[in-house]
């Protein structure tokens, strides 16, 4: 496992401005609770998803962290280095153009997959 860098980007929701950070290159040793724990220092985490691949049992290295407020998200993005399990990440702040906010957010609400 090489050095790990996480690039975070905000994904905003159109209806209820939801501050979500997209996190990449999460080391395999960290699962949702570890990532949640890490980001808790920046504020209250409403949700943290790290999708796991049911075929392999490993996660895919990325996930989403949703904060309660925009401010908390900013805190997280402002810190340059993030560490989990002693592995350094760097967080870069990038604001997506408008289309993306909507695009990304809208895949949330209406359709959900029934659990298998």
């Amino acid at each position, binding site marked *: *496992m090489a050095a790990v860098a996480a690039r975070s*980007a905000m994904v905003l929701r159109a209806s209820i401005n939801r501050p979500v950070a997209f996190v990449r290159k999460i080391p*395999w*040793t960290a699962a949702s609770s570890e990532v949640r724990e890490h980001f808790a220092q920046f504020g209250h985490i409403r*949700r943290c998803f790290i999708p796991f691949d*049911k075929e392999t049992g490993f996660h895919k290295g990325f996930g989403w962290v949703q904060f309660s407020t925009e401010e908390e998200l900013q805190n997280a993005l402002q810190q340059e280095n993030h560490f989990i399990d002693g*592995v350094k990440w760097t967080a870069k702040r990038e604001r997506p153009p408008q289309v993306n906010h909507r695009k990304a957010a809208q*895949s949330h609400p209406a359709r959900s997959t*029934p659990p*298998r």
Partner: protein
Amino acid sequence: MAALLRPARWLLRAGFAPQLPLSLRLLAGGPGRPHAVPCLPAARAGSVAGGLLNPARLYAIAVEKKNDIQEEPTSSLRRTASQFDWALMRLDNSVRRTGRIPKTLLQKVFDNTCHSGIPGGNQALLLLRSCGSLLPELKLTERTEFAHRIWDKLQELGTVYDVSHYNALLKVYLQNEYKFSPTDFLAKMEEANIQPNRVTYQRLIAAYCNVGDIEGASKILGFMKTKDLPVTEVVFSALVTGHARAGDMENAENILTVMKEAGIEPGPDTYLALLNAYAEKGDIDHVKQTLEQVEKSELYLMDRDLLQLIFSFSKAGYPQYASEILEKIKYERRYIPDAMNLILLLVTEKLEDTALQILLACPISREDGLSDFGSFFLQHCVTMNTPAEKLTDYCRKLKEAQMHSSPLQFTLYCALLHNKADLAKALMKAMKEEGFPVRTHYFWPLLVEHQKKKNAQGIIEVLKGMHELGVDPDQETYVNYVFPSFESVKSVHTILQENGCLPKSDTFSQAELRSETVNGNLEYVLSFLKSNTLPFSFNSLRGSLILGFRRITELLYKDGRYCQEPPGPTEAVGYFLYNLIDSMSDSEVQAKEERLRQYFHQLKEMNVKIPENIYRGIRNLLDSHHVPELIKDVYVLVDKEKIDSRKTVQFASSDLESTLERLKAENQPVGDVLKQLILVLCSEENMQKALELKAKYESDMVIGGYAALINLCCRHDNAEEALNLKQEFDRLYSSAVLDTGKYVGLVKVLGKHGKLQDAINILKEMKEKDVLIKDATVLSFFHLLNGAALRGEIETVKQLHEAIMTLGLAKPSSSLCSPLVTVYLEKDDSPAALEATIDCFRKYKILPRIHDVLCKLIEKGETDLIQKAMDFVSQEQGEMTMLYDLFFAFLQTGNYKEAKKIIETPGIRARPARLNWFCDRCITSNQVETLEKLVELTQKLFECDRDQMYYNLLKLYKINGDWKRADAVWNKMQEENVIPREKTLRLLAEILRNSNQEVPFDVPELWYEDEKDSQYSSPSTSPVESDLQKDVLKACQDKNNTDAYDIFLKAQEQNVVFKSKTYNILIKLLLSKECLAQAIHVKDFAETHIKGFTLNDAANSLLIITQVRRDYLKEALTTLETALNLKQIPSKVAVTRLIQAFALKGDVEGIEEIQKMVNGLEDSIGLSNMVFINNIALAQIKNNNIDVAIENIENMLTSENQTVDPQYFGLSYLFRKVIEEQLEPAVEKISIMAERLANQFAVYKPVTDLFLQYVEAGKVDDARALLQRCGAIAEQIPIFEVFLVRNSRKPGKAPTLQSLLGLIPELADKEAAYTSLMKSYALDKDVTSAKALYEHLTAKNVKLNDLCLKRYACLLKNAGEPVPFPEPPESFEFYAKQLKESKENSL
């Protein structure tokens, strides 16, 4: 520095060549200088591993610029070439970075090569050569098996093997220590009618020697002698090994003496063989002695050689000596990949301890503690089942050495990946002991593996293991990974209890609740919730709950116990639902990611390239307004001038003279005639007469006359007169400007006659009058200066050069500066020449003619000056440049021994530009020996493009028509394991052919117009055949199917058979022209006349499409089957067309048959499962089995094992067909199904697709009714956006878009909506609507993106209307790219 200069020091120690006593000061002065690079971290080491036996530098070839791989099918040859480049690049990169080729990569390249058609000879060579020591992770036997697999498969595919392939195979055998019978091998070659060459014999000798069979080796050696083949060092080295392995060390040592007697100095290879022989006997003393001897003999062993020595020791059971050899390693640039290769090999050979020793000795930067090194080692240890205790120990050592920040975690990862449960457990135990957390999800990969096999016992074992390590499974572990493998949750409970690993916490019961919820065990949930007293996180349950049990929602909302968290009970159920589904599951997150990707993809697709006709339109517009007139004017002017000049020439000088006199006598103006006369005289080069005339009519002279006269005088080298004229001219017309050439002529003639000041004045005037300086002018300056330099006029050169530079008439360049040096070189004054060079560098940062200066200095043995030059160069331009300068100078002057030492400097690497420069120099001046030496000496140069070097050599041989040496190059390339590029092979073939020699390999064909090649490559074809074949190919290229077919018929009549490639091309052409019958005829003919003839992928796909179009479905199915049996990958279009055709016929079996056939190939073809689902349903509906179709679809969308994610469950095709074909009952039932899926299962995709199909079919009322029945459709914005974007690409779709926006008003504000609409209007040239849209958007203050604005602006302009805003200046492409990038960045 020290490292770089080492060989230079050797030069000194060796006393150098007598004429060149370099002093110590030059070369020993190392330590003070900072910028040497003796060792580098792995990432930058960028080297080639050599494998222990195989110099992998053969990969260190700059890959030629890659062509786009996806070219049109006809250019299969070009594709093959780019395929080779691609493969080479992939393998080369891997070797450079990691010292090896992973098996999977080689397999991938191999598969790809197989699919590319007929793999070329060099591709085969590339693959074969990768099967040796570059696969350190494979056991020796596996490597050879791989090589054999490649060999057989490629042969089957039609690759023609030549001697180079057999030699490559031999090399692989040697590297893999494969036991084979050399005589059988020779027999096999003979059978294939391949003549063995020197390299073959050498390798066969090596094969005998490797098993200590001196007798066998001698036999071959004797044979070589009878054939008069030279016995090289390679053979002697092999004999050293042979004697040693036969147990006869004395004779092994004696070989060196024998060699010397034979006039061959033992080189590093021979010594290495001897060293290895000692090492295999564990004789460290002799190894040391020999190493000293090597050093004394001024030979240089590379790190790679030393690494091999370590391997020999270790393998023979003397690992204790590894450290002593390690001390001698110099850590050259390419060390890291070489070391990686050895480490992996050692692990494969179960010598992990030595591997670790080498790993720990690697010079890796450990400052930041962040870059991990050694993962490859750990990973391979895991693969090779190294015991856990050893591995944990290694991890500790790596951590202590600060090489790897998390070795245990990484090793665990590898163990989990390979599902090595015991190892994983041991590692986790170690982690726990070291104080690292052991997390629940570490066990998931293990569970997954058992789950796949439904191995309940295995799962229990894992759970027990977790228990032992004190890790409690969480809910997810149970629900996702444990429960699915058991009959019931109850049974899990019982078994866990029996095994004593049921956790005390209530996790299990909660997991059970969740699982039961999902499985629909309502009673259980109800009773649990009623009886539950424990604190309980509602969040964790609600996702599964709401989906499994809508009925419970009511209960939940009325019961305060479960409503502490938001949303509160007062909220509407709708909102609750919204939130619940919103509280996403894993799969939804994934889906979201996929959606975004899809969106980007569409945006990308939306930005179609701007059509060329727009450009043309703009150009035409401009044309009609301005340009034509201008062109016309210019044209008219040009025409006139022509006529004028013709007139002038008509007059002879004598006529003009009399006219002049007559005019003068009549006292009329004579200016024009005088000028004409002077011009004529000038063109007649009659200076005398012209000057007389000028004196006579002084007062009537005009500018043109003076200019011509001045130039004439310059040409006639009459400086005096030229200057006079110029002064006179200046007096008369002080502001007039001569043309550049005349000024330069003046400067030249004045300079030549020592009138330096006057010359400089002219230069000044040029500057003042701002005379146009062209490239040609600069070249004239050079000739002017160089002329002076050759005449040895130091002052002239200096001052004029100075003036040109200070006036800024030309920029300093090495050519302009070179005369400054040339002038001294001509005078044989080398100190001054060097001074001049250095001076130039100080002034202009240019080192002119340093090579020549150095050569001169070396010839004269000016040690101090060489030293000065080298000091200067290395200080100003770096050591590398200095070394190259010195290297080339030694080569040029024939000091090959010294050159060799320079190029062996550790740390030096190939500089292609410089090497090519010297090659070109040698070629132009026809220095065969120098170039040969260059090629020879650079053999081991790091990253040297060997193929390019040999190519240059061949170029020179071609000039000299020297086929013998060219043939020797072919042998040498094999010996050196160089993979020739096609151009090299072609050049070589050309040389041989020009000398009427047989070409011993398959020549890569050029495109078919190349006459020679096509004739050559099928030597058996008669002229008639090749002519016909050429004609066919030509016709095919011109897409003239009638001619092509006629030629084919003619050939058929004469019973001429073409090559199979030709038939493939012809068939493809015929198919693309819809001539099915003809194509079939050609195919039949080819099949009956060429054994094993098959159509290739593309041709078969085309055949299928054509057959479908003709409605020959059965035949098409057979074609598909044939293609698939040949392991071909038919095109997606072909398969889809066939499936659709079956569907419309209602032929379910047909579709299912295809589904069976392509099973497993879907991804390669790019075929979505939905194609089958849609078309099977359509076929069933066609057969009036509507209910069956609907039931199937519904089952697929609601069952537990979904094969397709509901969001990609696109049924648009089915809906469209059903609506199009007006199958009303089906439409109705489908509609009911879609609504049911939406309302009861929250699957909205089908209903939305149906809705959109209504809209697209113009059935707005139906769409509206559906929307009213199912309001959730309106929320499917992403689906709509996709729909909008897709439809905006087709013309005439604006009404569809409008009606969709009318139905879903919320869409109107979406960027995708209005940009699509704008695009659609632009496509339809609907200015009015576009205007209305723009005004509407501006009124609403919507900011449009640049692409949209650009589109609108162009629409307006084309309609001749003004654009009410500044048009975005860049191209469409630019903005499209910008938009795409900004979207990509946002993720």
